[in-house]
């Protein structure tokens, strides 16, 4: 019998041409392969529905649960310690810590994929710009009935931080790695420029200082804007609010990024780069650049505090974000991430997850976490003495907390809004594009996101 000749006759010989052709088809198809499962196209999806709190009466907590984190502020060590402490503190629940991404975007991506592919975590670390998307997509549970069942002392959470997760009269997450932006400055450069040993009261005051700094410090920039992905949409809210503008009106989806006030605020900043030539934009990480002496001042998160202090070879100054000409009180946005619980897991797992979240955010753990990372203490009763002893600069972050404002809806409630802002700011600050034109275009993009993706759900 000659099978190969049969194969020849039936045209099944695989020469190199066919091999390449089939490989191409195979590789292309593999590239296309999506995850298992898929959406339903019949019914559902549209319209806001009443929030259903889960009844935990008679539910026994699961024995083993998983906590997904992206280790914000290099927190893997302290998180592991807290998880070990929890596992040792009681015999019923074992928590497994999983690093599920290098940043908030990566963990979000993994969580979104897990929705269709299964294998959901029990506790998820969710950022300020992602939790609402999970809520809209029905992927996380409201936590109020858990608060009740497990007797959380919710009054002890810093009001504005817990309030950030309130929507439809329900809480969708608990604050954890929470931050505010801070103004970081190089005290040596300040001294060389003959400036008072403090941060500026207003951005206009810094506008006057920046030229002195540029001349005296020898640094490449007097001010460096933070890396735009992840920071532009967040920290620039302080500048926009200072000038009476904003990405959107306070507590509203009315987009105001192209208003005269907003455009003036951003033009003021753009001039530092292109007119005065004393400012630039960080490529990868502004805190690393700042610590290397590239810029005299920058804006970063409170979560960068420990990194900045330990990696800089000079005295690091920290100040609250400056005020603007219209909003003359210093005011800054809250930020960072909280922890939530997925919807499509059993009530037993949800209850166990709630038990761990309660432990994770208790004053003792909250302080331990803040001490290790620089994130703000999320509990009112947490005693910051230990943090302040180790890092006196943390006082600035704590003092700034009462002057925080919840972020603009356009950034935190519009899926992808933050990246649109970063992209348009990149055009302005790195390509010298016209501010008004870019903000008009941003408004169009944000309004489209609202109409297509949010309006049907709210």
């Amino acid at each position: 019998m000659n099978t190969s000749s049969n194969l020849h006759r039936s045209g099944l010989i695989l020469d190199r041409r066919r091999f390449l052709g089939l490989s191409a088809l195979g590789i292309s198809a593999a590239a296309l392969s999506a995850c298992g499962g898929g959406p339903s196209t019949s019914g559902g999806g549209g319209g806001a529905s009443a929030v259903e709190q889960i009844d935990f009466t008679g539910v026994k907590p699961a024995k083993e649960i998983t906590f997904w984190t992206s280790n914000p502020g290099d927190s893997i060590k302290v998180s592991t310690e807290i998880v070990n402490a929890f596992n040792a503190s009681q015999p019923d629940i074992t928590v497994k810590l999983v690093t599920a991404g290098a940043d908030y975007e990566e963990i979000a991506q993994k969580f979104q994929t897990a929705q269709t592919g299964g294998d959901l975590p029990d506790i998820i670390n969710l950022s300020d710009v992602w939790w609402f998307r999970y809520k809209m997509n029905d992927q996380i549970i409201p936590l109020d009935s858990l608060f009740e069942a497990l007797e959380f002392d919710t009054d002890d959470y810093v009001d504005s931080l817990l309030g950030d997760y309130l929507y439809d009269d329900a809480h969708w997450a608990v604050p954890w790695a929470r931050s505010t932006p801070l103004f970081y400055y190089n005290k040596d450069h300040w001294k060389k420029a003959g400036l008072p040993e403090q941060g500026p009261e207003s951005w206009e005051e810094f506008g006057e200082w920046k030229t002195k700094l540029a001349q005296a410090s020898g640094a490449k920039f007097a001010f460096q804007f933070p890396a735009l992905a992840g920071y532009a949409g967040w920290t620039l809210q302080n500048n926009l609010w200072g000038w009476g503008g904003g990405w959107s009106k306070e507590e509203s989806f009315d987009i105001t990024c192209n208003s005269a006030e907003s455009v003036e605020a951003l033009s003021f900043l753009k001039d530092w780069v292109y007119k005065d030539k004393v400012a630039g934009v960080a490529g990868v990480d502004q805190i690393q650049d700042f610590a290397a002496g590239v810029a005299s001042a920058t804006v970063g998160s409170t979560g960068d505090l420990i990194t900045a202090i330990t990696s800089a070879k000079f005295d690091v100054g920290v100040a609250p974000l400056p005020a603007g000409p219209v909003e003359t009180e210093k005011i800054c946005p809250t930020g960072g991430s909280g922890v939530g619980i997925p919807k499509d897991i059993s009530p037993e797992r949800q209850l166990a997850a709630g038990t761990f979240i309660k432990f994770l955010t208790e004053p003792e753990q909250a302080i331990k976490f803040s001490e290790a990372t620089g994130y703000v203490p999320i509990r009112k009763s947490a005693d910051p003495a230990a943090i302040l002893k180790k890092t006196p600069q943390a006082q600035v972050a704590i003092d700034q907390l009462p002057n925080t404002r919840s972020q603009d809806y356009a950034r935190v409630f519009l899926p992808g809004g933050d990246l649109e802002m970063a992209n348009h700011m990149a055009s302005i600050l790195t390509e010298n594009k016209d501010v008004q034109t870019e903000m008009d275009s941003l408004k169009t993009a944000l309004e489209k996101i609202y109409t297509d993706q949010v309006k049907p759900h709210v």
Partner: protein
Amino acid sequence: MTAVTTKRPRQALSGRRVREWLIFLAFVLPNVALIAVFIYRPLFQNIYYSTLNWTLGSKFATPVGLGNYRDFFTSGEAGKVLTTTGIFTVATVGLTLALGLGVALALNRRLPGAGFAQATVFAPYILSGYGVGLAWLYIFDPNIGALSAILRDIGLNSPEWINSPPWTLTMVIIVYVWKNLGYAAVVYLAGLQAVPGDLLEAADLDGAGPVRRFFTVTLPLLSPTTFFLMVTTILNSLQAFDLLIAMDKLGRGARTLIFDAYLTGFKEQSQAGYSAMLSTVLFAILVVLTLVQLIVVERRVHYR
């Protein structure tokens, strides 16, 4: 010839053929089943998703027919993304092949340490694209990167590799070529070693110098290798994305078709339906390119 004499062998043949076919199926079916489940099912599923308005992670989607395709081709996005894809592919394939051949020619001399040199050149190819991207990002960082320090020492300012889109694309192309050069070099090296020495000697006797020998003997004989490398590197370039996501966080400079599919599907607005449409467009491009290569180019490369 009678009907009886032809009928009996036919019956016997068909019995044997059935058995052969059963054996054939027993060998082939498991593989076909695997390919169908893991390659063709997702392929058709993806084409179906491309007709939906679906947010990744959502349990519900709305059918929009060819709406995603219409949006892509009429919004001006197609022009931008396809241009970037074209520049990235042509530059990376061209440079990888040209430099790969250069390196292979250098390695083809029987010098001590040639094996070590080959391994060194090939090593970046097996590294993770994401890791390579992150490492090079710190080299290219215009403020604290190693490259900016070198440029400063010779009195030059570093380009804005990370924040200026054309420079970002250039940076990604350079790193991609560096990473994949070794693959082309090793394949070319194998091709070079298969070039018959007698042809080169004959050309030498006819008075052809080294340059002439290379262009009139070696290069034409390498054309099947070049063709093979072209097909594989074009396919790889069109699907490169780990390096891109590491080096171009916002996707402003190197937004190729597959990177666009990733950004729109998994970041930005999580538009899985739109992203599936982009993947389908890429699939169509790959199929057309492969067919063109097989039909047009293959006919001209073999010296038989």
